[in-house]
């Protein structure tokens, strides 16, 4: 179906998020929208999907003007969408989420068996591994992302909007998704694809439109090279590779011994982890999602009840301490799921920026909060991290996804740290800001702070780390230097020990990750 947007304008208060945007997506075309954080991409798509009411402009499907009073109308008109902030009901199972609004069954009764079958078929077809009966809130973000994609694809939309569907996918999954997109395009679906990863744009897009500050600033050809696209996007030149000085590690600062976590059903989530992190080094944690990374970072912060073993930070034991005490010991933390674990949506940007420090000087004395100090800090951080917000008093939920991530990073990095832990540090952040955040993390390392980075992006782990720990089934399988062969890392993530993996690679084994890395030109 042909999609045309004419002069779409959306205003929030006095802020113009979309300013007379024109966009045409031909049938059988993958149209990529590029733009920095807060450019207005998600807003535009939400207008198209009927979630936001536009303040001007019109939408045409196959040259017929249409009016949507809500997403129901848009769905009926054949539009489907993968939302940047997942639209999944946490206590529902995968199958229930996928069928919601479009339930199979007779006389109003649910046909769960057929919903399960749909999920199994789709996930088999797309190479996703999803259990239809898993409860969504128990899944790691990456798996939730896959559910969100399956949900959109199960509706057989004629216009498909994908708003950062790959932000937390592994390269292998991204590869599968791009295969599906090509297949759908060939069947005549029009696809709008939003991403910050330029190699994906280059791999699948037929046309590229760039948005900046609510306006279209140009179009680009997918054959353009990544540096060119990056500078068009953020309006300045961007260094895509991080060049960092070699680490100068000091003494051991974080000493983890025999750390274990068992859930209420007796399932071992973290199995006897031993780990040393030195002052002034970045330890990357690689591994397929759900192998204990979440539990490891949360246990370090005292968020896992019943953690066993020992965590010593600068000689002080952290196991058994409250999270407040651990934060006060100077631990900066970025959780993987920012929407649920990092931000209070209705609090202002300024309030969110001091959430972990609000009870201490200079932000408070006794029971009194000092709003002035809070605002001063917020103004400085917003400036430094380039958070695009109308004012520091806006609710953080009104920020774009990438800008919310910057708030979380700014909060964690904005004070003297004795340890910095970040999961998915650059989730949904644009290339310009990734460059900044990566530099900032390396600067933190060079100050002598021990740093732990967890990411599904193997590229990011390799770029940032000085050493890489590979996690597998709740344990650390091995720790290798950052310049280890990618194939070795890939095999380790599948359960090979370092030696076994090296042997296998020497004998010619490759992993699917490598093909993608070869296709794009990062690393």
């Amino acid at each position, binding site marked *: 179906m042909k999609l045309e947007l004419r002069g779409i304008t959306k205003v929030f208060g006095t802020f113009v998020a979309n300013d007379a945007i024109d966009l045409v997506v031909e049938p059988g075309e993958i149209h990529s929208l590029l733009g920095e954080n807060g450019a207005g991409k998600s807003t535009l798509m939400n207008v198209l999907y009927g*979630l936001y009411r536009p303040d001007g402009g019109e939408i045409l499907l196959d040259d017929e003007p249409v009016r949507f009073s809500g*997403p129901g109308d848009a769905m009926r008109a054949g539009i489907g969408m993968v939302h940047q902030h997942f639209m999944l009901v*946490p206590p529902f199972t995968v199958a229930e989420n996928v069928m*919601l609004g479009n339930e199979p069954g007779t006389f109003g009764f649910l046909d769960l068996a057929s919903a399960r079958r749909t999920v199994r078929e789709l996930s088999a077809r797309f190479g996703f591994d999803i259990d239809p009966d898993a409860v969504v809130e128990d899944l790691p973000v990456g798996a939730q992302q896959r559910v969100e994609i399956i949900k959109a694809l199960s509706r057989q939309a004629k216009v498909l909007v994908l708003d950062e569907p790959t932000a937390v996918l592994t390269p292998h999954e991204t590869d599968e998704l791009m295969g599906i997109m090509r297949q759908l395009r060939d069947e005549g679906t029009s696809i709008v694809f939003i991403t910050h990863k330029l190699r994906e744009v280059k791999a699948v897009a037929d046309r590229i439109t760039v948005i900046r500050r609510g306006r279209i600033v140009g179009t680009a050809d997918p054959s353009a090279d990544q540096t060119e696209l990056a500078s068009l996007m953020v309006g300045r030149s961007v260094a895509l590779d991080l060049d960092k000085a070699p680490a100068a590690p000091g003494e051991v600062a974080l000493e983890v011994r025999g750390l274990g976590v*068992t859930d209420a059903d007796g*399932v*071992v989530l973290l199995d006897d982890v031993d780990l040393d992190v030195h002052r002034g080094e970045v330890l990357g944690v690689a591994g397929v999602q759900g192998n204990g990374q979440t539990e490891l970072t949360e246990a370090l912060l005292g968020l896992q009840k019943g953690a066993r073993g020992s965590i010593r930070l600068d000689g002080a034991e952290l196991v058994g301490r409250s999270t407040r005490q651990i934060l006060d010991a100077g631990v900066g933390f970025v959780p993987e799921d920012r929407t649920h674990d990092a931000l209070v949506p209705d609090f202002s940007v300024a309030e969110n920026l001091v959430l972990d420090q609000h009870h201490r000087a200079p932000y408070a004395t006794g029971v009194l909060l000092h709003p002035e100090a809070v605002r001063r800090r917020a103004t400085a951080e917003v400036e430094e991290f380039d958070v695009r917000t109308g004012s520091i008093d806006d609710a953080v939920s009104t920020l774009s996804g990438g800008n919310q991530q910057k708030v979380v990073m700014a909060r964690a990095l904005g004070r003297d740290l004795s340890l910095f832990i970040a999961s998915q540090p650059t989730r949904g952040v644009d290339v310009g800001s990734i460059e900044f955040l990566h530099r900032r993390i390396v600067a933190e390392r060079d100050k002598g702070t021990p740093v732990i980075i967890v990411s599904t992006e193997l590229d990011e782990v390799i770029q940032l780390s000085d050493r890489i720990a590979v996690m597998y089934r709740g344990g650390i399988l091995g720790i290798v230097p950052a310049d280890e062969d990618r194939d070795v890392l890939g095999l380790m993530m599948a*359960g090979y020990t370092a030696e*076994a993996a090296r042997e296998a690679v020497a004998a010619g*084994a490759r992993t699917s990750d490598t093909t993608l890395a070869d296709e794009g030109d990062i690393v």
Partner: protein
Amino acid sequence: MSTLVQDPVPVADAPVVPVRTSERLRSWWHLPTALTVLALAALLVFGLGSPAADSTTFRLAAEGDLNPGGIVPGDVAIPARVLAIVLAALCLVIAGVLWWASATVTALGRWRTALVVVFGLLWVIAFLDWAFHGATVDVGAMLQTMMVLAVPLAFGALSGVLSERSGVINIAIEGQLLMGAFGAVLVGSMVGSPWAGLIAAPVMSLLIGVLLALFAVGYRVQQIIVGVVLNVFAIGLTSFFFGTVMKQNPQMFNQPLRLPTLRIPLLADLPVIGRVLFEQNILVYLMWIIVAVLTVALFRTRWGLRVRAVGEHPRAADTVGINVNGTRWGNVLLGSAVAGLGGATLTIGTGVAFGEEMSAGKGYIALAAMILGRYHPVGALAAALLFAFTDALQLRLGTLPTGSGAGIPSQFLLMLPYIVTLFAVAGVVGRVRVPAADGVPYVKQ
């Protein structure tokens, strides 16, 4: 390639296989300890506290019951002390089994819940045995009283389930009950038939439902405040009419009408449970039907899935084309109609005329039953029955002839239902999952 550790194929998505340990949870001793303490208390207080000479009589079958060959005995008199000690000992055995299972991390699955339920039953019988030593417990009559008291609570709790599952806090159950009770009598008296009252009750309490939906869903007013205000409004409105027209002309406006009892032949003659289940008025049967229908509807139908989605994550529901506020309106109205039936049980269900503020806090107990029942229709019914049982017990114990029974002070007895409510709700409340968007109005951008 012989040095592989795990799977030979490097798939990026190998599912994580959980490994089980024999590690005990930190709180493994909580439940067994609590049960042991309770069992010991039963042994000491109920066992040794009952005079050795007294016996307790349990009346099971009655004259004229369908009781071929007297399978179910009539009056059973058991030495009070012996019975209590035996029951307490059984309780101790169950506690022991749980100690063993928790300490060795043996998974009991459903058996665990079953054991706890059996423990509860044995303990309650031991309590009755002690409390009524030297007297007679008419089990059938006690269950009947419980049922009469439970029905309004159950309807109220179901009303709460309906509205809160869709994300609207329903403090106004009290007002809905009151309006239902009022409407049933008023219209019933005017028409001269309790059946007219049966229809009028839900319609009348829809008034509260409409106001609740209008302010809470339409105008997004803080829902607890709206609920409380509506309760006060219902009291004011009914008291006004009660004090004026109803007082002046009770013949015309406030007659004690009663819905006929519908007796199901044969089944109603079963000993002990026959009358309580099969010789009731239509409202009681309706309650069972609504519980069953609602359970299926909430968890097995399209409607239920959508309602729950709206209560958990309205925006997600919106993105798949579900009308969030429409669903909420519907559920609030439906809920208030159900609560209206509960109100009807207070008047035409029991054959009394309307009295000022006659709902007497039942709406709030119903709210507690809804929470204790974990927002599930069956759970809500079970909780309503539990609260009603303690209330029935309290009534019966209060009328024991002096010289028999354990002589518990009547002031304490009056507190009993509320103490049970308090402990029951406090005990589960940490584990109850409230619908995530309960009380949060939905706003579109």
